[in-house]
């Protein structure tokens, strides 16, 4: 089914009456995403783009017990509560569009989600898309084509360029996931790689990371355990080095964070490193050559 979302997935929108959320509710529905309800406290009973609005996630879930995915569009100071509310109501995947959430809030929301076995994507994610099936978030639909390559990236724009580069070479995406741009994220590369590894509709994975943070390095050891090839594209090689968290940050993170270190770690664990965007499909072809998946991936081209 691709990963995380498809045409059967019932989703809700938290903060649906906001300007951005209501606009993208319209776009998501046009794309085929099944949105069963929206939530804005105090606005229960209204309708947005034909979607019924509830005061609480619990009230929404009472009417739509089969909803499993929520997207969060509320202002940053309400974001932690929105995530906790969704977890409490039984949502299984929470896509946090909100950006600039206080770090300690996100740490807390993240730890509660982990304990409950709930997947949180973001904050500050452009969302995710299973092309031709469903879209949660605000990715531009025209960029993506159905296919058998999974992609996961930190930057929204790079998500588009990956798809573009794949499409030019005749490939398409099973699912494209934006991890998000905030410093502390719910799901990281490893979480998404695991889902792609288990997905029968994905033959290879492209991960795009960038300078700063440690999520690329943390994912590296898992790549050596995967049966599917991973192509990694890391940006920031020519960028000036960013700031560190004092000596303490260096004590904990060592040399992590530079593009060079990320590339070394990923390569050491078996990822194929792409220097440019157009090299990505070439590496996919090479990696899949001779595998059963190769024919399928190419047949999957539209």
């Amino acid at each position, binding site marked *: 089914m691709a990963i995380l979302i498809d045409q059967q997935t019932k989703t809700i929108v938290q903060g649906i009456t906001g300007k951005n959320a209501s606009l993208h509710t319209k776009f998501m529905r046009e794309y085929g995403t099944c949105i069963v309800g929206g939530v804005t406290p105090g606005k229960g009973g209204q309708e947005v783009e034909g979607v019924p609005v509830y005061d609480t996630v619990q009230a929404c879930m009472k009417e739509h017990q089969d909803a499993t995915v929520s997207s969060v569009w509320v202002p940053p100071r309400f974001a932690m509560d929105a995530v906790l509310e969704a977890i409490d109501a039984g949502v299984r995947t929470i896509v946090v569009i909100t950006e600039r959430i*206080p770090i300690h809030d996100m740490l807390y929301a993240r730890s509660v989600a982990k304990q409950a076995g709930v997947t949180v994507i973001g904050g500050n994610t452009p969302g995710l898309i299973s092309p031709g099936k469903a879209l949660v978030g*605000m990715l*531009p639909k025209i960029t993506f084509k159905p296919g058998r390559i999974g992609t996961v990236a930190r930057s929204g*724009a790079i998500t588009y360029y990956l798809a573009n580069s794949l499409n030019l070479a005749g490939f398409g995406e099973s699912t494209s996931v934006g991890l998000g741009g905030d410093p502390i994220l719910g799901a990281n590369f490893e979480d998404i790689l695991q889902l792609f590894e288990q997905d029968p509709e994905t033959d290879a994975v492209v991960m795009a990371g960038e300078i700063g943070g440690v999520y690329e390095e*943390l994912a590296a050891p898992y790549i050596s355990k995967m049966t599917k090839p991973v192509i990694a594209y890391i940006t920031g090689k020519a960028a000036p080095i960013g700031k560190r*968290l*004092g000596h*303490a940050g260096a004590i904990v993170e060592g040399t992590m964070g530079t593009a060079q270190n990320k590339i070394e770690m990923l390569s050491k664990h078996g990822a194929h490193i792409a220097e440019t965007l157009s090299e990505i499909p070439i590496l996919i072809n090479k990696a899949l050559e001779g595998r059963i998946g190769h024919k399928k991936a190419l047949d999957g081209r539209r």
Partner: protein
Amino acid sequence: MRLYEYEAKKLFKRRGIPVLENIVVDQDNLSDLGQIVFPVVIKAQVFLGGRGKAGYVQFADSREQAESITLDMLGKKHGQYRIKKVLVEPKIRPIKELYLAALIDRLEHRPLMIASTYGGIDIEEIARKQAEHIFKYYFKIGEKMPAFKARNIANDLSFSSAALNMGTRVVQKLYDMFIELDCKLIEINPLIIDDAGKMIALDAKVDLDEDAMYRHPELHEMGIEPRHEVGELTDRERQAKEQGIPYVDLDGDIGVFPGGAGFGIAAIDLITHYGGRPANFMDSGGAPTQAKLRAMLGLLIDNPKIKAIFGARFGGISRCDDWAKALVQYVLENKPKKPMIMRMTGNMEPEGRRILEQAKKDHIKLFEKIKIYSVTTPIEEVIKETIKVAQIINDGGQ
């Protein structure tokens, strides 16, 4: 958001972490140096470390000497940071130098305290070579520091039983402050014991979460407001900032007119990869206005070092027709002579292309050196062509 040492020490004092009495001096209050007891230490107030090695931590035995050192430091640059203030406090003799920090461990996603009895010197070196001297204490998220744990940490710092309570208090207060004020980092290096047996934070590093400052009126009361911790800006960087454009000057001759920051970083890599030299980093942000796009172009056209401009628009939230309109209006108004090699694709692409084609037809001469590729040309080809065009100009051709 990093704080200056003097701001961090003000916070420490307010929260009961012992610091020395200090004064902060700039051009306007040099006379305050008359009120303190010598000898003193004079420390430049900048975000960058390595002040001591750069000569920006100095001692003075008299007012005259202090004044001359202060005047010498003020206005100088440490790295890219201009020294605008110095902190002056009594010179003391530490008996013991310790290290104490609290931070968010991004590997474990938990708060972490680090302590060491090897403070003051290069603590990172100690961590690499003698890791047994670095103690780490993890905390559960949302957990308050239990008193016994603070005692354990203080005990690891090998205080005498008499000094244990003092150490416990500092550990406790530092952690409470870390949690209560939404800090990313608090670091004291060195935390010292002086010859009277008193514990003092001799330096102070605090990094706050700017996205959580709204809920801490305490900071606002102290005059600590959200700010961008940038170094000295170049004229062009300042001009960009005034127009709300994140912009960094680089050394090269190829102007980069990208979409968002993610591709901005990638573009710099790609230009470098193919042997070109990017002149800048820039970020349009999501859905830039036409005025902002024109301002971005202006920054590049007006830069005499730039020989050719590489541009890319992937219309997502931002639309191709807006981008095309901005480009056409800029060209008609400013008649730029520099070649621009660009690519435009995404939402509203056909509309955008119509606008460009019409303008090209109406103003053949003005658009002679402007090429806008579409989705069928890989972005790398556009970059390679830009590099070639810049090279030809550098070689003396037109």
